[in-house]
């Protein structure tokens, strides 16, 4: 379990503690942005075989990898962030991009609000993505930022 630095919001700590009892691998909230890449298999697995290992999945659930009981847009949002931290960080910095658009779709953001959504994520970049951020803390920061906006608070129920 990743140690949370002092100063991380208490809510984040509690959400992660809850995630501990959640289904394995589902929105655990522990993914960090830009983890070390391990590429031992790059040349071999890039060949025909393209071996998978361990993450056999049948997409049996609500849009999340290895996620047995994820229900509702919030769990899906967290799971999506867990799997896409690196791309989200870039799109958040640019204020647009395919991964950010996908996040908006997972959260049910309507087309009319997508510009405001992008702006909000961009202006809150430092809260969402920093060296100690995990997908759990980023999720909390995102919902907090949306809750602060008259236009967007409807998306965080």
């Amino acid at each position, binding site marked *: 379990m990743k140690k949370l630095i002092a100063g991380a919001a208490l809510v984040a700590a509690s959400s992660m503690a809850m995630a501990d009892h959640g289904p394995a691998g589902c929105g655990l909230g522990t993914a960090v942005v*830009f983890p070390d890449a391990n590429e031992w298999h790059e040349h071999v697995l890039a060949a025909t*075989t*393209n071996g998978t290992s361990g993450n056999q999945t049948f997409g049996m659930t609500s849009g999340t990898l290895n996620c047995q009981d994820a229900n509702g847009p919030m769990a899906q949002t967290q799971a999506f962030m867990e799997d896409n931290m690196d791309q989200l*960080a870039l799109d958040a*910095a*640019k*204020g647009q991009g395919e991964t950010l658009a996908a996040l908006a779709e*997972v959260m049910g953001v309507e087309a009319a609000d997508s510009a405001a959504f992008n702006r909000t994520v*961009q202006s809150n*970049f430092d809260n969402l993505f920093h060296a100690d951020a995990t997908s759990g803390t980023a999720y909390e920061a995102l919902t907090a930022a949306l809750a602060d906006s008259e236009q967007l608070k409807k998306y965080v129920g």
Partner: protein
Amino acid sequence: MKWSVSIRQAMVLLLLYSGVCVASNDASTFEALAQHKQWQHLLHYRLHWNGEVYSQNDSDEFFLHPTGKYDALAELNAAVRAFSITDMADDESAQCRFPARYEWLKQQLNDHAFIDQPCPDFDRWAKEIAAHSLTLIFPASHINSPSSMYGHTLVRMDREDPASSKLLAYSVNFAANADPTDNELVFSYKGLTGGYPGVVSVLPYYVKTNEYQHMEYRDVWEYPLNLSPAEVDQFVRHIWETQDTEFDYFFFDENCSYRLLALIDAATERADLTDDFFLTAVPVDTIRALDDQGFVAGAVYRASAASQLNAASDQVSKQVREVSRVLVESDDDIDTLLQSLSAKQQVQALELSHAYARYLAVKKKKASPELRRRTLALLSARAKRPIESGFQPAAQPGLRDDQGHQTRRFALAAGQTEHGFVDLHWRPAYHDVMDLLDGFVPGSQIQMGATELRAWDTDDIRLQRLTVIDVLSLSQRDFYQRPTAWGVSGGAKRFVGRESPLHGYLHVAFGQAVGLAGGRLYGLAETQLLVDNQIEEGYQLTLGPRAGWLYQSHLLNANIEGNWQPSVAGDNRERHEVLARLGLRLTSQSQLRAEWIRQWQQETTNNEWRVSWQQYF
């Protein structure tokens, strides 16, 4: 939901003793149906090398009859009986386990009164996937990994709303379920011998784009397939049937590409795609197979992070490029480094710097806490400048991988050393740097199984060369990327000269390549191991420089190379070699080639030249 073994056993018992009877006049109908192409496709029956027809699925769970793997008729009879049972709990009936077979049999036996059983689990799953159309996904070869020329394929199941995110669509992937603790040698061996089971998985497309676009730096081609919604529904039903079952997995025939074609075959009577593949299925050929049968409706290009970096870097001034690199490589204050640039240039430099930082972390393995912190700081600075960079996306390449020359090559050559000779050459796969360039990555080469027979004017015929593997990657440096050029080849060949015996060899080389005079100049440190009893002590290990210049274009290929190999161990004879090669495109599938080679071994010098005609098929 796993169909448990106990339920399966119960089902078999039910079948054996059930009151469901099959009218005798059905018998001939059933025999015809069992031989029907579509039933064979649904069960993955295939003619094997030993002349027998049986299913390629290895799991009991895939069949209703104990001998279903080998007996299409017994399996069909069992299926009709099982699909007629009406008093099972929800999700427990055979109809729920094999919805695609059920659907097909219902259509074929329209006078047979099947009663649909409730399958809420399957319905939920299919509704979540919400497939409306299929897209074949082909990650193109990537720059510094010739083995990726073999590529991979998967199928994305797209939703009806064209505005919905492609990243969130589910994709069907077939892959060897490799053991991550196996090293590369074990992995390759097991992959070649079918030592890994192949499994179908369903995962969000973003899992794959993260892997290909951002980690492996591979462009992706997406080919929308023109299947009807009914055919797509049947595809989804059939994917469900493969759950928790295993297929054989071999690198060269029953691989990802072959199996995906088999899954599409099972989904529609219009398709008979696997017929053409008896020995090898190279992913790019699967696209051609789909295209030949009229299933490909277009092609969409998805640029990798590397292509985007190159495209963006071409759109800015040298000053912006320099700043972007310094932003990553120094620890100085970011705002100070950006001072000299306009607002828009600052945004461009920051985006380029992020791409460069990721390249260092992912490809150069320079991942460190400092680089990670710097990358985040650069993105933070980018976020504080809410304007657009104005970068145009990477342009689609003029030709796709599937538009290159065909996979197999045959060549006829005539040449001369101290005697004249004629060569017959056959290569099952795939591409060398002298082959036609269109659709291939420049500077990349991967050949397997190339075999050459030589007939001398003195009437004797010999095996001249057998290439087991021959990989060369001459990726050149650019402003941001500094890939390592490398090569590995192994097999058996002869030195120049009619009396040269065969010897076994293994060559390994590492170095660098740079763009020069329209081509690329490369320098490698190469070590060679030669093994044969013609060589003193039975072996020789050499180490020396190998350098050359390679030019590749649509019409013309040219290569000059020198290789100096002083001995390190074993036989102490010095060996040097220079060669010059020229290739001229005749048609999209043929080429004329001329080669000259000069070899020095201690005191002796030998020359060979030859002219050849290469035909791809």
